[in-house]
């Protein structure tokens, strides 16, 4: 009877994403947090397995104790009870110095080498869609040790090559980050609404790690604009637990600002 109930836990795709993201953060790590779902995932991790996780925001806030889900990466709740508030250049300086373990990002497009586009869709000089530009994303991916990307999984969002590299992944393949002079390990995980991806150590190409419940590797391939590396050990993404969903709904995002 208990098993049946467990399998009937209801959750939305965004709730699953937030839970998957939160599991990637270990206690005691510093996490450079972007806006939206990354923010939710980081706060969830802090309330579950990583109470000593330290959030960093590009407005300069470090290690706050937000009571309310911040509406923006510069919202006052990102520095509620923060012991220090740095300037923008200093907060990235701290990342370059080695104080940022994880960078948490979104974006419009990500390619097979983990490069992210947040600038233009189409030709730069005659864009089909003009996007926001980098913001802190380029700095976060250039300076943090490992980078997690979250986004919607559609072929046009996962092209073989992005239209514009705003934020560096592995650029054009093995050794390119080092040649360019970039720091940090580069892209580490990609969390989409279909599955969790990583990157092949030798080829630097995106590989499947797990597919979400109800999805198959074939479906993920169909929704990806390039050939995914699919190792033999891919598995199903563990579903959100009751505890994860309870904390997410009651403590992290009670007003359902982000997870709907």
């Amino acid at each position: 009877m208990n098993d049946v109930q467990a399998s009937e836990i209801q959750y939305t795709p965004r709730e699953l994403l937030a839970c998957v993201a939160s599991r990637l953060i270990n206690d005691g790590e510093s996490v450079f947090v972007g806006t939206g779902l990354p923010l939710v995932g980081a706060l969830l991790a802090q309330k579950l397995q990583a109470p000593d996780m330290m959030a960093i925001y590009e407005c300069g806030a470090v290690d706050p104790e937000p009571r309310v889900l911040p509406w923006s990466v510069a919202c006052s709740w990102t520095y509620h009870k923060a012991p220090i508030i740095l300037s923008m250049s200093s907060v990235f300086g701290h990342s370059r110095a080695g104080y940022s373990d994880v960078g948490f990002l979104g974006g419009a497009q990500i390619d097979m080498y983990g490069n992210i586009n947040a600038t233009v869709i189409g030709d730069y000089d005659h864009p089909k869609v003009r996007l926001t530009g980098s913001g802190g994303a380029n700095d976060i991916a250039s300076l943090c040790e490992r980078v997690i990307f979250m986004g919607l999984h559609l072929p046009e969002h996962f092209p073989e090559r992005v239209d514009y590299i705003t934020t560096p992944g592995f650029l054009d393949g093995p050794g390119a980050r080092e040649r360019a002079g970039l720091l940090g390990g580069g892209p580490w995980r990609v969390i989409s609404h279909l599955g969790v991806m990583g990157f092949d150590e030798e080829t630097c190409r995106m590989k499947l790690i797990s597919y979400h419940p109800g999805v198959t590797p074939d479906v993920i391939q169909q929704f990806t604009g390039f050939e995914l590396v699919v190792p033999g050990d891919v598995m199903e993404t563990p579903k959100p637990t009751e505890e994860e969903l309870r904390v997410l709904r009651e403590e992290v995002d009670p007003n359902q600002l982000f997870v709907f």
Partner: protein
Amino acid sequence: MSHANDRLFDHQQAREWKLKKSRMKRDKRMPLSDAVAEFVEDGDSLVETGFAYVRGPMAAYWEIGRQKKKDLVGIFTPGGMNSAWHEFGGMEGCHVAYVGVEMRGLISPFRRGVEAGTLKVYSEWSHGGLALGLRAAEQGVNYMACKSMLGTDIMKTNPYIKEAQDPWTGEPVCLVPAVYPDVAILHVHHADKYGNGRIWGPAVNDTAIAAAARKVIVTCERIVDTEDIRANPYQVVVPHYVVDAVCESPLGAWPGEMPGLYYFDRRLQERIVRVDWKTAEGTKAWYEEYILGTKGQFEMLSLAAEEEGIHPLEYVKELENLACDSAFCSLGSWGIGGGRDWKYEEVAKRAI
């Protein structure tokens, strides 16, 4: 008259300009409309301050719209609301680190302008990169060498930054030149009549911008006694000698957030971004109603409140009640009566 971009990296011209500025402690208070009329000139580069819609000088931006300034060059780090002016000839180009409203998406006038080619993008930056350019101006160095932007298309679409070899290690670095905007408007919690301004919350780039910009307007929620500032200078982000004008501007960051004092007007911001500015015609109608049709923050806020069917005083109270309260402790430590000693409701009552 040179183009704003020719002045933007000219450290010698910026120094000559600042050598001529008066250091006299004089009362620089004036109405916001006078300050914008005198110190924001057509063709100027205008750097955004605060964090776009957190502690941004929105009242001044609306006044720029009202006065129909022409051909400004925006420096968006981050930014957004100013990008709408290009649809009325107010902005001809920009330097972009970020324009948008995070989870709420893109700013349509910016998108339309760039896609149609009517708003030029002169250079792309990362937030950290542009922050370093402003910091270089503050620190008095010609450029900074950093590890951002390398290997990406930003390097190809920004004519001002350069890749070079670190002379010690030989590794690639990105060189960012010192940036000297023509004009900056800083919105602060308190300022004295000479222009010393202090804040609660993050300075973001404001200490750097205060030193970098040629002309500086300070707008503040409240004018305070200069002794109050001198007794506790720790939160001061802008010193008097860089300041050209001081304008008391309560609710000056609305519809953005002023840390500790009032929260985002989420309702109005969502409406602007998702509805009012969605089309060029909509933006024009909004501009005529909200900007040209009003004289200042309280008239504009009354209009927004009426459209929602809420009494303006209730509307103000709601924004005030949503403020993140941890700021109160900080404000108290400034010795202004153990906490916030005024209510916007009261200010609004007098103004409306």
